[in-house]
């Protein structure tokens, strides 16, 4: 076990560590992009195949393919994409009639909003429930929550989404709980005030967030409960109690920080799960985000969009892992940067 480091040296460590991790991510992301490129081009069909129509003369079709650069050899197309990637505009999206950078620029914030809020739900709700369970171990509440968490953990998100829509659409429910079931904003959004707009977005976020995050929140709760129970058994908690500290202070002041330690590492585990989930959830709730873009892009063989989307998902996962490791280090002084 390494001795605690001085803040300054630790700070340098953070920078160097982060830099090295980012450097390591480069070949990883390049690998992801290359693999995507190969898979897409091995699959039959190209962006123009689906538009067969006697009104499109063969020469026009040929022109379309030429404009998209599809007539060139694959290695050249690959290098072209890489070049467009490094210049930051990611190429042209055939199915969206726009540069990919603009397409992504519109979709990415929406997905980040949805998954960000879900992430907060996952960890805040999960930790809160886990703590309550641990504090009230073996109580009826604990058992109910355990069974509930276990069940929710096993619920498929797409099915939960459908059932939620079914629920809030039932006349008996919709009469008192009018929640939006599709889209990000209401039709009258433009004419709302600032608070009205925020409230409108919040209402639209409720159902997709639940469908996307509830299962993972249940997972975090189960994990948090175990982690908390383990910490509570430690000597220093006994000491704190013996000193006559209030239960609230013991739990929130002393135990929580240490119990959170392993939970933080779950972040890296749940990020890919979360992004994978957005594909289905965005379709079910008409959320105009990256998941739908990726799905539609693959079906339309819109190569540049798919490449950019997989790259971004990969980058987000890498970033999430890094943040999770840094957080872990922040709460656990024993971790020394540079170690694996």
């Amino acid at each position, binding site marked *: 076990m390494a001795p605690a480091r001085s803040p300054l040296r630790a700070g340098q460590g953070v920078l160097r560590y982060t830099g090295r991790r980012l450097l390591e991510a480069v070949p990883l992301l390049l690998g992801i992009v290359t693999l995507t490129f190969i898979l897409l081009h091995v*699959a*039959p*069909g*190209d*962006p*123009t*195949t*689906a*538009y*067969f*129509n*006697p*009104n*499109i*003369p063969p*020469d*026009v*079709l040929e*022109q*379309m393919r030429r*404009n998209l650069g599809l007539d060139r050899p694959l290695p050249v197309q690959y290098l072209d994409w890489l070049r467009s990637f490094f210049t930051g505009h990611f190429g*042209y999206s*055939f*199915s*969206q*009639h*726009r*540069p990919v950078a603009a*397409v992504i620029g*519109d*979709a990415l914030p929406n997905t980040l909003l949805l998954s960000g809020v879900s992430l907060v739900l996952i960890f805040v709700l999960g930790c809160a429930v886990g703590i309550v369970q641990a504090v009230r171990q073996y109580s009826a509440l604990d058992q109910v929550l355990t069974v509930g968490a276990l069940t929710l953990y096993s619920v498929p998100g797409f099915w939960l989404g*459908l059932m939620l*829509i079914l629920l809030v*659409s039932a006349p008996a429910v*919709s009469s008192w709980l009018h929640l*939006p*079931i*599709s*889209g*990000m904003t209401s*039709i009258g959004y*433009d004419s709302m005030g600032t608070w009205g707009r925020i409230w409108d977005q919040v209402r639209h976020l409720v159902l997709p967030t639940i469908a996307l995050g509830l299962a993972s929140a249940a997972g975090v709760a189960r994990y948090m409960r175990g982690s908390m129970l383990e910490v509570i058994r430690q000597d220093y908690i006994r000491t704190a109690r013996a000193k006559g500290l209030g239960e609230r202070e013991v739990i929130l002041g002393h135990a929580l920080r240490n119990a959170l330690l392993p939970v933080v590492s779950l972040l890296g585990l749940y990020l890919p799960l979360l992004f994978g989930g957005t594909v289905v959830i965005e*379709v*079910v*709730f*008409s959320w*105009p*985000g990256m998941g*739908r*873009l990726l799905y*539609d892009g693959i*079906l*339309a*063989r819109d190569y540049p969009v798919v490449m950019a989307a997989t790259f971004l998902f990969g980058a987000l996962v890498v970033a999430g892992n890094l943040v999770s490791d840094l957080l872990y280090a922040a709460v656990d002084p024993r971790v020394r940067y540079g170690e694996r």
Partner: protein
Amino acid sequence: MRVLGRCRSPAAGSPRGGSAARAALAVVLAAALAACGGEGAPGGSAGSVPDSARRGGTVVIAGQTEIPGVDPLVPPPDYMASQVERYVLFMPLVQLGSDLGFRPWLARSWDVSEDSTAVVFHLRDDVAWSDGEPVTARDVAFTFRKAKDPDIPFPNRAYFDRWDSVSVVDAHTVRFRIRPYSQFLFGWSQVPVLPRHVLGDVPDSALAGDPFGTSAPVGDGPFRFVRHDQGDRWVFEANPDFPEELGGRPWLDRLVYRVIPDEATAVAELARGEADLFMNVPPGALDRVRSDSSLKVVTFPTSTYAFVAWNTRRPLLSDARVRRALTMAMDREAMLQAVRGGLGRVSAGPLGPWHWAYDTAWKPLPYDPDSAGALLDAAGWRDTDGDGIRDRHGRPFRFTLLVPDVRIRQDIAVMMQADLRKVGVYLEPRTRDFASLAGAIQDPSRPYDAFLLSWSEDLVIDDRDYWACDRRENPLQFSGWCEETLDAVMDSIPRATDRAEKRRLLREYAETVQRAQPYTFLFDEDRAVGLRAGLEGVEMDVRGELRTVRSWWLRPGAR
């Protein structure tokens, strides 16, 4: 130049001379006269409601697919986008009448030279782009030149195959040189006129990514562009300057197109009143929508038919008796009821009831497994080894059917499999995603036995690409079947001078195809659009869902 038709330009639009033809033309002209002028004007159905009470409100249209852009010059073509281009944002020169003849729209009238090689359009002078510029003949010429520009992959260039050159006569008059063709105006009913002053400076190579198509369109139609949130919605508002003569400002204040990819969610939104109209109510949800007193359903025939294409190049399916037997072994009525909720009719051939040449005396091949069995027996397919599958020369009657990964098509394949099994034919459905399927069926090596798809006919029927013997190499020759005698018939259809002749030719064509069964035509599909009971003035037919959008209005309680 002698004027053949003015405004009341013939419905079948024959620009070719000849006295016999002209005599026949008179009949058609009379019919066209009655309709002329009637359809461009606002639909005056419920006279009890004063116009002032119709104005106002927002209509939200829910659709399952995104409208990527509204520039008709930019591929790929998109069905909903073309609707918006034609009826919402822009104006084409002419509109289609209910008889599929042509009516004035942006062009107030047109003259055709007697030798049918010149067309002169006289444009309206009271139409302006949304930025205030007037719409002029130069815009028409610009649109035409872009459509013919070999550097621009304009998807519908075939519409202007026989249009050669353009010249601007004055601000509101434009003249074209053309080669004679019967439905020559059709392209100008589909492709709207575009603003030269906006797009004129955009280089061809930059046209595809230009904001004009996606975030800053300048239009002259009944509605103006407000905003486009990618993957979410398009918002339009009423154009207050839309010509009074064409109905003036739309009744609605706003029109919103929202993308709701999941059909269950879309139906739920319709039922909750969050959407006013859903473009494609799934057959399974029809009863639900019909039973809701706050909703109504509009159904109308489309030019789409569902079919199974048999690859007649393969010995298994080369015999017309076998293909007939396969058709008769399928209970298409049951499929229609189960899979499409009865939306449509069992098909009697390539021409659907939406078309004026359709013969109501046509009967689809009956569902008759016994006769189907007899036909298969006659063709030499018998179950000699008692395994329940017919065979011939030791080869069992098994084949694969490519099916797109669309649930309705997969459901049809499931029922087909069950039906064919009963007459001793084993069909194995294979699901493909749409792009792969499209790639496979256009492959020159024709790597399939059969496939299941739906096909939308162009409103002007010219099917030579599918069956002409002299176009065997065309990728759309899915079945590989052709008849030399039919080639002559199909060649004369576009040149036919009048409707009676054209009707005769079209029917001969349809009946020949029906006899040979290179496809099994499953059903002529209807479309069901669900809308709120308070939304009035909605009329839809084969010409499109948004055709009457200018005169849609909301009852005050529904706003």
